[in-house]
């Protein structure tokens, strides 16, 4: 028996012995049987906390924007039709000329008049680290926005890009649709049909308070976060009603019902 195997057995043996009285009623063995028992008793755990927010659409969106601004993120709003123009306006205003973007970004977001480098995946043309690092910024969609904490959640689907894309550039422009905004964190989990494989939660730009608890913006991640909120049509009417929505809304197909 190799040492690695014996350590595994030794640790699991000790753990099973240590917890045996608690598990006695359910199962004494190890393996899939006790895994099933454990997961079966999980739904019975107390969950008396707020699982669903109480705000209507307008105040919820306002809260989202307010919390983003508290993190020094820049925010603007636009209509679905006005999005391409809003993107171009933000790029111009912030002086960003060379941009990187994921392959799945909707074509009309790629504003003319700027230099775009599209990250196409390993076979068809993946961007080099250096190219991403040297870009003026990155444009991505997102999966969800959590108003209460001003959190943007990426699942790194085709329109959100691989992780490094939204990490190395100093400036991140993120498109958030009103229909993607939930009030509280548990509502985000309700929108995950199944747990994602890769996730990044972003709450404001990179920051530290390691020196005398003074908050400093921008250490290693992007120093600037810029969010455009798209007022898609079902924002007011259905976001609340959609809480059990099980759709993967990658951001490129707005507000689908």
């Amino acid at each position, binding site marked *: 028996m190799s040492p690695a195997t014996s350590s595994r057995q030794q640790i699991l043996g000790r*753990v099973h012995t240590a917890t045996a009285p608690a598990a006695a009623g359910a199962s004494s063995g190890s393996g899939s049987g006790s*895994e099933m028992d454990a997961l079966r008793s999980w739904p019975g755990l107390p969950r*008396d906390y707020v699982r669903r927010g109480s705000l209507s659409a307008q105040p919820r969106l306002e809260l989202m924007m307010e919390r983003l601004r508290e993190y020094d993120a820049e925010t603007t709003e636009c209509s679905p039709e006005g999005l391409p123009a809003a993107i171009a306006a933000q790029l111009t205003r912030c002086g960003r000329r060379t941009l990187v973007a994921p392959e799945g970004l909707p074509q009309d977001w790629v504003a003319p008049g700027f230099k775009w480098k599209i990250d196409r995946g390993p076979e068809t043309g993946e961007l080099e680290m250096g190219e991403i690092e040297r870009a003026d910024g990155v444009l991505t969609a997102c999966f969800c926005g959590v108003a209460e904490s001003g959190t943007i959640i990426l699942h790194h689907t085709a329109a959100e890009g691989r992780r490094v894309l939204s990490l190395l550039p100093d400036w991140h422009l993120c498109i958030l649709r009103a229909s993607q905004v939930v009030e509280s964190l548990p509502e985000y989990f309700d929108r*995950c049909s199944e747990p994602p494989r890769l996730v990044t*939660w972003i709450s404001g*730009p990179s920051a530290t308070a390691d020196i005398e608890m003074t908050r400093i913006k921008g250490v*290693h991640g992007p120093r600037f976060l810029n969010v455009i909120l798209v007022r898609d049509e079902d924002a007011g009417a259905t976001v609340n009603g959609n809480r059990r929505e099980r759709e993967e809304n990658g951001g490129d197909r707005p507000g689908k019902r």
Partner: protein
Amino acid sequence: MNAATPHPANRPVLDPAHAPPFPVAALPVLRNPQLRKNVAHAVDVIQAKRARLVEEKADWQALRSAAAAIRAHALENLGAYLELFETRCTAAGGQVHWAADADEARQIILDLLRRECASEVIKIKTMTSAEIQLNPFLEAAGIEVFETDLAEIILQLGEDEPSHIVAPALHVNRSQVREIFARRMGIENLSDNPQALTAAARNYLREKFLRAPVAIGGANFLIAETGSVAVVESEGNGRMCLTLPRTLITLAGIEKVLPRYQDLEVMLQVLARSATGERMNPYTSLWTGVTPGDGPERFHVVLLDNGRSRILARRTERQTLRCIRCGACMNACPVYRQTGGHAYGSVYPGPIGAILTPQLMQMRHAQSLPFASSLCGACYEVCPVKINIPEVLIDLRAQITDQERSRMGRVFDPMYLGLRVAVLIFSRAWLFHSAQRIARIGLGLFTRKDGWIHALPSIGAEWTQTRDLRGLPKQTFHAWWANRGGVATREGR
């Protein structure tokens, strides 16, 4: 242990096997006003922010209860969840290693680095790696280690040790950071503005991130259901380490498992608020094995026991393992506030360190730590997973006292002799009353006109050196009650 390098003269000793006892280690700090000021400022700032954000959360107590229940459930079923995690992580392309103790974990990691032909490694802040003293071990093996968390850089370059589990360099102020960075990074005219110091750290690390073949990090949570690992951070150094190198090694204590992804809806709400006083930390990353085209090609998880399964087996102490390392207990602790973290002689300081460290040491070292508390309960009140730290402290004190009692030398120890005499006196009423009479006469000699005892001789001086003692009253409660009872009885008739 061969991993430990000789400590520079002023470097705090955080190896519990060699650290001085708490009262001895605390003395230099108590005599260092600058250090006390730095620590007090930092914990005041974090506590104020935490209090404000907890206040705004109407369901805070319900979140705490849920968080405690989830962690307790995960521990009760730890074996099953660890096996599930292993299965799912392996299926997603990760490789799971098991380390029974620190030695084995260090060796596994070194072997992995050798296999990668890595001569340098970048690190995300992980207290677990400090627990197994990984850095000195790797450096002795010829591998250059670069910490990437700002606070950890300050400590590494300053040849210092962490004093807090969330903000490890909170005992260092800006001018001290400026001095360390200017000297070790070779920057002239560096200002002590935190903005400039942070920028210096960014430049120092940027190319290391893009170059390093391997990163080592910890885990805030392991998700059994998916085999995923979650890391929370602020700076983005974690995201760099998790995505840029070709190989990633995660070192995690076996207790870090959560049953499901959805459990993060509770854990991350309480963690950020408790740890840094934020509604959410800037970055949370979660990944599952390896993903072709995104991030490292190889991913290893080292699951570390190192005494944890022993803690799991004890009924009262098991709750220690619920800890999610938020550090709220140390910020709230009146003892930590005065002494800072180094006095605890462990990488885990404060109230949680006082219960975790001696248990990880199998109660063979760090026996002074469970006594480094006033049992005021502030730690329990702020703990997001409701670890009853005072309860565990008392239980550990009892274990340590039992250990001492079994030692022969203790037979003649004045304290134990005194306690044995006390047992004799308290168990016989006539002896007790006589003792009271003698004490009243004896203490009367030292009682001043103001009714207080300011100085006692011999072993009593240990008390009166720092505190006054109230003199005994003229009448005992017993005598007073008897008199009063007499009156009442007469009236009753």
